[in-house]
């Protein structure tokens, strides 16, 4: 299980990285933390001819409050977010708390936010959080070009995004606080990729639920919003076990999950229902 040969390029800055990507074309891959890419290369399931190592682009390692928004640099590790309680505050506690679901300590030490988004695993916590919280992703292209992609438009399918081969994710922006949000998931074994992951962001007015967002991972090729479930939350009822159960049931009914080695579609559906109920309760308790 040794990777195929490749040429290694170490980027000095963002412009240098994008210039390299433009020059090397589709044969190049960005190497950030490497926690998803390197295993695939060791299996030779990925065999880029060039790797552009952005590990030294320290300007991409930051957590910044920007008014009500929060910006996280692409090279920020999961571990940095996990230990950034003060910078995140209660407004973005959901991000910090979600990190305990990302693999294990050694993976979180090297794995990065941007790498996770670019890898676009449908069960990945950052992908789910981005979709849940209407995040936008900043990408830099050749010649200093820059654009912003809404999370809803980022994920195309299994492990594919709308980021072009010559573009680099530099930052993800969470536009507004989410003090009553929670993410939970289930995997047979601690630290594994989730069978199903669920995240909820409630809009509360006292104990009345005015609305909210519900997102699921592992039930489709990309993380999805459960719109029917969100309709239930928009009815303006007092938070209750029954309300959350109804919300979860609506989500379970609207998704079309696949059969996987972890279970069939019906199992995924049941799991989604259970996890949404739990996420709602956790969000309420925040």
């Amino acid at each position, binding site marked *: 299980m040794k990777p195929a040969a490749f040429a*290694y390029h170490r980027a000095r800055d963002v412009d240098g990285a994008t210039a390299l990507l433009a020059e090397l074309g589709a044969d190049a891959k960005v190497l950030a933390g490497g926690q998803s890419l*390197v295993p695939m290369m060791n299996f030779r399931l990925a065999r880029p001819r060039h790797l552009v190592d952005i590990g030294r682009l320290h300007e991409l390692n930051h957590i910044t409050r920007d008014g009500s928004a929060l910006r996280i640099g692409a090279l920020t590790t999961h571990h940095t977010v996990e230990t950034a309680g003060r910078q995140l505050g209660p407004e973005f506690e959901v991000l910090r*708390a979600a990190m305990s679901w990302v693999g294990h*300590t*050694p993976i979180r030490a090297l794995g990065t936010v941007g790498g996770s988004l670019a890898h676009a695993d449908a069960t990945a916590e950052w992908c789910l959080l981005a979709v849940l919280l209407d995040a936008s992703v900043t990408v830099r292209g050749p010649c200093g070009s820059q654009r912003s992609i809404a999370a809803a438009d980022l994920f195309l399918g299994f492990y594919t995004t709308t980021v072009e081969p010559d573009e680099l994710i530099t930052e993800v922006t969470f536009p507004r606080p989410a003090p009553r949000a929670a993410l939970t998931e289930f995997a047979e074994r601690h630290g594994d990729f989730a069978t199903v992951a669920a995240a909820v962001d409630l809009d509360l007015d006292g104990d009345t639920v005015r609305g909210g967002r519900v997102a699921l991972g592992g039930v489709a090729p990309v993380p999805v919003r459960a719109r029917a479930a969100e309709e239930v939350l928009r009815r303006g009822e007092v938070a209750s076990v029954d309300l959350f159960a109804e919300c979860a049931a609506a989500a379970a009914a609207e998704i079309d999950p696949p059969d996987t080695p972890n279970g069939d579609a019906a199992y995924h559906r049941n799991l989604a229902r259970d996890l949404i109920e739990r996420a709602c309760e956790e969000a309420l308790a925040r």
Partner: protein
Amino acid sequence: MSEQHLITLTVNGHDHELLVAARRTLVDAIRHDLRLTGTHVGCEHGVCGACTILVDGAPARACLMFAVQAEGRDIRTVESLGSPEAPNDLQRAFSEHHALQCGFCTPGFLMLAEGFLTEHPHATKSEIRAAVSANLCRCTGYQPIVEAVDDCARKRRCAPGPAAAPSATQAADTTTPAGPARAAADPGHGQPDTPRSP
């Protein structure tokens, strides 16, 4: 494609210059170029943790890094801990609790625990269990490993030194919710309060 890269890195306090192919993983460079064979290879895809080392103080999978990425980094391996004649406290705790049998996974668990306890000196036993779940052991059933790390942490806390006070990050971190599995198993949420010793 077979170009070689000259890298410098610090391993266990010693500076090394190495000429490596781009695709050479850090664990292969440590084991076969530096001949530090205490770090083991168990899966080469980041799950088993036998290759866990400290990179700039944090536990990391040496099979998921290329040696070229380690340029300028500070690496610590099991060889940096105590010697057979003078094992460190963590190694002693592993021996006292019979936390190793075949010993193949052991260096990975030691480095995982060293890194974890440095950052979380006040970790509870269930936090230690969650941290230890990063690596695979096929021999011990894990209980002795968890208890050895917990025992070592307790003794370090009792010893005078800088590790005695919880740090700010640590204080924030203890609120990390455990997975549902562990939460449900915590005392008061399912188990009778029974004495565990006969």
